[in-house]
């Protein structure tokens, strides 16, 4: 097996470990988040929420609100200049409801006032009359012809499918067939910063919004559509983001549109900041899935067929559901060679809070399904979980469920061996068995693995741009259409710029994104930023270097191909490679100089009229997809990973403690070790919450909780130390060979923990989260939840 860490002498910046470039600003309070932006004379916006999950609007009376002193505008659907809806896949998400409300986070009217208190009073004084409709709350029942319709076209949001081979034949060749049902819950992103925006009317009749936005360009499209403005007059600027995890897209489009409507109406800046309660009520969540898996294998444990049917709850609007479920469809089998596959994923509209992108994007659910299934299959075959996985994992030249031949290094087996070696999987398993016979608490160990398509794949246009501007003192300003939302993109992109231009990271200033200054680079999602923006940044840098090299070669009197750019200096490398290891003893040039500060070179170039600015554009390699057969080269490349968890289960109370965690991911190339580790630590913590605590519970379209006192996130005391083994199989396509990590790091933590818990219990729990009752009883207890009646 290749060594997990390869020598990296070829790079100056790549692969080092640097703190995030914005870390000091963040911890000293200098960073300006969405809510930190204020303007003189600004008004405060508030929304009037729907009072029912499903109802027809009979009348909206705003007269009392309008007459309150300090109220500057009260708007309803009648005041919208453009379309009253937006949406990337289906443009039906309503900004201000006119005929119907579809969930409790729908908004009927908006108010701008001199203060938050007045705005709040005004909202309370708005009266809306409704005709209540029956609530659609179950995604499976929603698809029955008898179900009331949430949208005019019926409740089917999307049906995605994969067809490979013939599952009938596959099952008939199988000696073992298992049918199992798994379910995952709805969860909230729980970013630290609730949504915030400041909308300012522009001098040109346009609008500028500054706020906590993740995907600037989709939000700008929504704004232009709703305000009936050309894209060129809508400017979206990103404030420092206090976390997003996929969550600040449609929820922010809605908020931005409402603030912008109020700003244009009043001619004044309007600020809108969600409370946590509003954010929990209105902002979209991760889809809950109900999954039926049928798997067939021969006696030796080789998979023959898988048939998978999944129902996803899309909630009130489509949002990203078609794309999220598409990824689930592609990855539903897990990272295994399965000759015959039939997968159907249905997303259904209901009157629950809508669901859309969240870290993993349709993978955490199917990872839980397929990885639970593999453990159950192993047990049925009398094998251990590692053996059955290793037999079936994808390898180089394997064909995926969608018929894609993998022509890169496939390392899922390597990742599995890494974590099981480090965690001494089989030994621990055996010794736990002995321990559990007589001792308490019970111990368990579990593993999981996955493959994941990098970037958007065949689900969308995949290209991104970065601008780089070398200054005459050798410092650099860079900005990217893909944004930093706390994941460290600013740092990673800066590192790549540093590598290409031979500058140190402290000389680079990375600017927040701005739609009017950067090209539409698509959304910052799908773990695509390091890859896509990285390649774009490299192109921009290369272009600048090409332009300034002739000048350097003239000054230093050496051939262009022997110039070395490093540490803010340009020198004549004695070795004739530009990328040779840092050579100090550069030869003396004709002009008597042996080296030159990059700043001097930039000044010289500037004086000669050489452009020091470049825009790099990178388009992803081709992918393909046949809707009819559900076959194609879904993604241009894939990443692989495996996790191992050890747990202790107090079977008397149901408490689960995760005592050890090992995570191994093939990232192609580690760009910033510090950042890469951060992604894994955070991903594991998030996956742990998904496994054990978090659930955005709803009953008949009404949430059972509204804040973090009841929506339990793990704290530092619940999260074990994570041991990390990075695998670096450089990818042919990625920048320096890098692929992606943000989502893979999160998607398989929960199944590893669940498998460990089931190992400890000697009993399978097929539903997340593994609440105490499920751990003790194997099922949840139904109960009427009363908010805070036993405690505060």
């Amino acid at each position, binding site marked *: 097996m290749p060594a997990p860490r390869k020598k990296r002498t070829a790079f100056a910046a790549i692969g080092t470990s640097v703190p995030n470039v914005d870390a000091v600003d963040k911890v000293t309070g200098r960073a300006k988040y969405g809510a930190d932006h204020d303007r003189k004379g600004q008004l405060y916006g508030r929304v009037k929420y729907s009072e029912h999950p499903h109802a027809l609007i009979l009348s909206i009376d705003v007269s009392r609100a309008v007459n309150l002193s300090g109220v500057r505008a009260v708007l309803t659907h009648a005041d919208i200049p453009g379309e009253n809806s937006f949406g990337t896949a289906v443009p039906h998400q309503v900004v201000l409801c006119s005929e119907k409300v579809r969930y409790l986070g729908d908004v009927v009217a908006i108010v701008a006032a001199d203060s*938050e*208190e007045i705005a709040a009073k005004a909202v309370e004084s708005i009266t809306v009359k409704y005709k209540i409709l029956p609530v659609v709350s179950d995604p499976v029942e929603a698809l029955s012809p008898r179900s009331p319709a949430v949208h005019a076209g019926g409740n089917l949001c999307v049906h995605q499918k994969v067809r490979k081979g013939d599952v009938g034949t596959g099952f008939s060749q199988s000696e073992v067939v298992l049918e199992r049902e798994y379910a995952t819950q709805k969860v909230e992103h729980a970013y630290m910063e609730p949504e915030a925006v400041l909308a300012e009317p522009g001098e040109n009749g346009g609008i500028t919004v500054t706020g906590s936005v993740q995907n600037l360009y989709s939000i700008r499209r929504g704004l232009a559509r709703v305000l009936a403005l050309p894209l060129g007059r809508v400017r979206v600027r990103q404030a420092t983001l206090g976390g997003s995890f996929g969550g600040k897209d449609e929820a922010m489009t809605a908020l931005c549109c409402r603030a912008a409507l109020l700003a244009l109406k009043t001619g004044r800046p309007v600020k809108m900041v969600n409370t946590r309660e509003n954010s929990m009520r209105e902002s979209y969540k991760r889809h809950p899935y109900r999954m039926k898996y049928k798997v067939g294998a021969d006696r030796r444990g080789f998979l023959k067929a898988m048939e998978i049917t999944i129902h996803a709850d899309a909630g009130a609007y489509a949002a990203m559901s078609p794309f999220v479920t598409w990824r689930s469809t592609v990855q539903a089998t897990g990272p295994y060679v399965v000759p015959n596959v039939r997968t159907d994923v249905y997303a259904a509209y209901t009157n629950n809070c809508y669901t859309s992108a969240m870290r993993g994007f349709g993978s955490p659910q199917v990872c839980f399904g397929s990885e639970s299934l593999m453990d159950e299959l192993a047990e049925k075959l009398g094998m251990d979980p590692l053996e059955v996985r290793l037999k079936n994992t994808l390898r180089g030249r394997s064909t995926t469920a969608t018929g894609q031949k993998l022509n890169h290094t496939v390392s899922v087996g390597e990742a599995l061996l890494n974590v099981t070696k480090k965690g001494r999987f089989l030994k621990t398993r055996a010794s736990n068995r002995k321990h559990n016979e007589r001792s308490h608490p019970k111990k368990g160990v579990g593993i999981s693995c996955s493959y994941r398509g990098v970037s958007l794949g065949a689900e969308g246009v995949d290209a991104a741009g970065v601008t780089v501007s070398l200054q005459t003192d050798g410092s650099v300003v860079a900005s990217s259409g893909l944004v930093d939302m706390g994941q460290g993109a600013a740092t990673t992109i800066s590192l790549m710029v540093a590598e290409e231009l031979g500058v140190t990271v402290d000389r680079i200033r990375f600017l927040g994104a701005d739609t009017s200054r950067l090209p539409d680079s698509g959304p910052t999602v799908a773990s695509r930023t390091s890859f896509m923006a990285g390649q774009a940044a490299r192109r921009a840098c290369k272009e600048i270097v090409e332009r300034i090299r002739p000048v350097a070669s003239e000054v230093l009197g050496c051939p262009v191909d022997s110039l070395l750019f490093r540490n803010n200096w340009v020198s004549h490398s004695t070795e004739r490679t530009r990328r040779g290891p840092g050579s100090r003893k550069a030869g003396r040039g004709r002009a008597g100089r042996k080296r030159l500060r990059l700043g001097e070179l930039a000044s010289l170039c500037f004086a000669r009229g050489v452009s020091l600015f470049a825009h790099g554009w990178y388009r992803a390699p081709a992918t393909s997809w046949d809707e009819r057969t559900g076959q194609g080269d879904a993604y241009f490349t894939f990443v692989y990973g495996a996790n191992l968890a050890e747990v202790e289960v107090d079977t*008397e*109370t*149901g*408490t689960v403690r995760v005592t050890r965690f090992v995570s191994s991911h093939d990232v192609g190339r580690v760009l910033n070790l510090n950042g890469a580790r951060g992604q894994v630590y955070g991903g594991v913590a998030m996956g742990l919450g998904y496994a*054990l*605590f978090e659930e955005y*519970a709803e009953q008949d379209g009404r949430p*059972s*909780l509204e804040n973090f*006192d*009841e929506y*339990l996130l*793990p*704290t*530092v*005391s*619940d999260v074990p130390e994570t041991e990390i083994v990075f695998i670096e199989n450089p990818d042919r396509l990625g920048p320096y060979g890098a692929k992606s990590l943000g989502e893979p790091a999160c998607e398989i933590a929960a199944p590893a923990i669940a498998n460990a818990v089931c190992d400890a219990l000697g009993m399978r729990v097929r539903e997340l989260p593994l609440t*105490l*009752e499920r751990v*003790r009883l194997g099922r949840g*207890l139904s*109960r*009427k*939840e*009363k*908010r*805070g*009646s*036993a*405690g*505060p």
Partner: protein
Amino acid sequence: MKLVDVRFHAPRGLEEALALLEGLKDARVMAGGTDLLVDIKQGLREVRDIVSLHRIAELKGIEDEGDRLRIGALVTVRELASNAAVAKHIPALADAARSMASEQIRSIATIGGNISSAVPSADLPPPLIAADAGVELESSRSARRMSLLEFFTGPRETVCLATELLRSVVIPLPPPNTGISYFRFTLREASALAVASVACRITLKSGVVDRATVVLGAVAPTPILANKASRSLLGKNPSAELFREAASHAKEEAKPISDIRGCVWHRKELVHVLTQRALAEALERALGKAEVAE
């Protein structure tokens, strides 16, 4: 939320505070504010005047008075968790304090606030009741004292009048061969409220249980005594069997409700488990085996 319309008073002494409370109608007392401000934000309380206690020296400090500890109402949870006298005499109270909330909250939350807010899941009352603690109330006209058990009348309800302050908590030092313990169950490790909690006290005399108290928290409108469970221990030789029997009584005596943190079934199961664990630890402490923390 903004407290724009609220008047904030910060009296410099007990007398001034009590006079203020006498004069103002509907004033709310604030100690650490960790409960009060949440209540105000959630709209559970309308507030016009806040009387903050933070400057009142008379309410601070832990006094070892020889046969009892006197704990001022303003003593923070953090102080309880790290005080030597508390650790020596009532380690269960230090355990409870340490288990609460988070470092930040513990540093400002007070014992007076924890008791006065009378939330059923509060952590300090069960071990205090197990230790026979009493409370001292004072108004500008009178002073009274009572057992802590009598102080609570319902969820978020106490005998404390709007003109009164909880001044101090008084705990008699436990007699020899006495062990007190506190166990609680939460949905995650830190910063979580008890789903169920049990405090136990055992005093041994020549090897048999001479006195026993089982207090249950978060499973009734107020902390309650599990009388049957306590009585079932008296005069018996402590054993796992005996504790299991007592735990079964406690489970019967618990009157929990279902809410988002747990259902009736689970809470009762928890009482059963926690009572056994708490009794075992109380016994260990009574036998003097347990090392006193810090």
